[in-house]
């Protein structure tokens, strides 16, 4: 057992209101520099939809993630030798047009335009060339199903859905969508890291955050193609790759990442997971339908004395182990099993988990009334307006068993609370629901509390990062004594 700690996340999709506050918080802090205008380290997609960059889930086009070849894991985008060839021209690199051409407006013209018979206008100006530009798409162009026939229809996750199910999904008055906020998953088996010829990308040993060493990145672009989630971006101005850093400077000072902190729907949870790094490769090589379970099995019980001993032996700080014991992510993912990894079939072992959405209400509109109060209050999962297969494609590698389990449990929690507070459903039925969902009343209560009544401190259990100790190991503590004060910081600049 090789115990390591990983800062992990849960996004509760039922709570996301699609406000994009998270994206803006991130942009204002990290990506409002030249060359990063088009980047959205955090973005919010509408599902069904093709997302950002367009059709990122289409691995036939992008060749991201891993495949199993003769029983061993291999990157889809390159072998060692192919990495050399790809250096001159990468066949799977998305280009600016796959994201969008960033623009601003010529606001000055509104003030400076000479007097004339027409109203002055602010023309869109490219943030790359500075020339006027025709706006053709944006980072959330298909928000709220805007332009569905062009976008939503091409969602890869519609694969395997019957014609009838597809029609239902888009039928007027029945159509349904949900939001899918995305950041870097800080994977256990990151494809970007494995693809970087320069070794510029790395995983931090102590907390598992995946970073790009800016001084080692040489713009070979392999990471961008290899990340199946398209969460490494290319800064066209500095010639360096950049990605979500999980706001590590904030985490190191005990603050939640900006997108977490600002989340209006309070959908985000953060906490430490302990996992067994020795079994990683084996778990990531399992057949598709076993992957969710295999990943779960890597996550270790932070209360198990053996695990604690092994963790301590591996240098995991006591305070981190204690933090892992309070981790909300551990509850959602391992104990309750209601949070699932996105597209685990890419085999990067993502450490951001999603509670699949039940909302909008499972009701279907029939005979002119919204039919939601029946003895089957929240309807059966099978009759959900978002077809199970769709969610299975997103969160179960094409298999819906784990999604069904998660949704059923959530439904049981609602029945349970309905019986408690409203009382219009009887206790016996609620208990039967709980039993069928493999859930006890106590567990349902705990899920309810962490979902609905959670405080800031319960949502974000940030482990002490012990950066100060880390620094002491890297540098002589007295080295900078009497040396601080005025100085210079070099801004990143392109080339020489």
């Amino acid at each position, binding site marked *: 057992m090789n115990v390591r700690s990983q800062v992990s996340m849960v996004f509760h999709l039922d709570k996301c209101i699609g406000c994009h506050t998270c994206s803006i918080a991130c942009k204002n802090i990290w990506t409002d520099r030249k060359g990063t205008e088009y980047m959205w380290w955090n973005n919010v997609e509408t599902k069904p939809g093709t997302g950002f960059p367009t059709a990122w889930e289409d691995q036939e086009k992008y060749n991201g993630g891993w495949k199993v070849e003769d029983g061993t894991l291999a990157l889809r985008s390159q072998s060692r030798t192919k990495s050399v060839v790809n250096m001159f021209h990468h066949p799977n690199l998305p280009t600016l047009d796959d994201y969008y051409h960033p623009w601003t407006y010529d606001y000055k013209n509104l003030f400076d335009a000479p007097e004339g018979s027409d109203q002055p206008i602010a023309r869109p100006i490219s943030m790359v060339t500075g020339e006027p530009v025709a706006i053709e798409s944006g980072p959330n162009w298909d928000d709220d199903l805007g332009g569905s026939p062009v976008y939503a229809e091409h969602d890869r996750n519609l694969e395997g859905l019957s014609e009838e199910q597809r029609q239902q999904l888009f039928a007027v008055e029945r159509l349904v969508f949900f939001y899918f906020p995305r950041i870097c998953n800080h994977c256990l088996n990151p494809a970007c890291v494995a693809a970087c010829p*320069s*070794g510029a990308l790395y995983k931090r040993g102590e907390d598992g955050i995946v970073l790009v060493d800016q001084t080692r990145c040489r713009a070979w672009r392999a990471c961008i193609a290899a990340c199946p989630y398209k969460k490494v971006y290319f800064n066209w101005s500095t010639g360096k790759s950049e990605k979500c850093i999980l706001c590590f400077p904030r985490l190191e000072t005990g603050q939640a990442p900006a997108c977490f902190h600002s989340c209006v729907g309070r959908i985000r949870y953060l906490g430490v997971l302990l996992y067994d790094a020795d079994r990683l490769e084996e778990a990531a090589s399992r057949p598709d339908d076993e992957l969710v379970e295999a990943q779960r099995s890597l996550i270790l019980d932070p209360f198990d004395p053996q695990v604690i001993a092994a963790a301590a032996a591996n240098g995991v700080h006591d305070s981190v182990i204690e933090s892992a014991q309070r981790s909300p992510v551990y509850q959602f993912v391992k104990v309750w099993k209601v949070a699932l990894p996105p597209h685990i079939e890419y085999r990067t072992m993502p450490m951001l988990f999603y509670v699949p959405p039940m909302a909008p209400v499972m009701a279907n509109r029939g005979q002119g009334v919204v039919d939601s109060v029946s003895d089957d209050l929240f309807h059966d999962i099978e009759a959900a307006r978002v077809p199970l297969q769709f969610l299975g494609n997103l969160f179960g590698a094409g298999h819906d068993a784990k999604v069904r389990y998660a949704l059923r449990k959530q439904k049981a929690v609602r029945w349970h609370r309905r019986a408690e507070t409203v009382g219009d459903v009887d206790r016996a039925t609620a208990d039967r629901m709980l039993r069928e969902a493999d859930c006890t009343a106590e567990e349902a209560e705990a899920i309810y509390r962490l979902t609905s009544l959670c405080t800031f401190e319960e949502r974000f259990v940030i482990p002490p990062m012990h950066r100060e100790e880390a620094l002491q190991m890297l540098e002589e503590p007295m080295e900078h004594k009497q040396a601080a004060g005025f100085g210079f910081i070099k801004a990143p600049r392109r080339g020489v």
Partner: protein
Amino acid sequence: MTSVLSLDALLFGVLPYVALAVFLLGSIARYRGWRYSYSSLSSQFLENRQHFWGLVPFHYGILVVLTGHLVAFLIPRSVLAWNAQPLRLYVLEVSALAFGVLTVIGLAAAVWRRITVGRVRRVTNTRDWVLFAMLGVQTVTGVLVAMLYPWGSSWFAATAAPYLWSLVFLRPDLTAMAAMPWLVKTHIVTAFVLVGYTPFSRLVHVLVAPLPYLWRKPQVVRWYRGPGVVS
């Protein structure tokens, strides 16, 4: 050695050492002081299709041609022996010329792309244009030499290789160079200038070609404490 003050002496006796010194000191200083700037500065992200038709032929062409030069420099005798049979000589010459032409075509396509595609022009600065001009002179003269003064693979081994070795042994022997046609001289001088220009250009990406990827472990983990790279 001929007159110390002659132009030939300057270009072939002094310039090589100056270029090499500037190259070494410049690259090391840049690597130590401003490592961040070591990047290939790829622009594929901004334009994809023309990038392929320019960059791929250019890189394969230049790699083969440079390797050819290197081999002829390192083992001139073997090259001469190979060329002893006319058929083998023709094969070598024709393929060398083909890759040379490929390089020129690739370079032309890449420069054309930089001129015509607005987005890419935006990320091209004066240093880049100077570099492209130098590369242009270098590759075009190279191809012309190959066409106008045939069997270069043989006479390179007999004249240029000994000259280069004389530089290595710090006893520059300029007799062979002084007798060269001006086209060949231009090719050689531009080569030295390019070497000296490297630390001031995007060419430094050649120095950080990531060979260790061919054998390193796939995953990279960095610890504050303990080993730098383990997985």
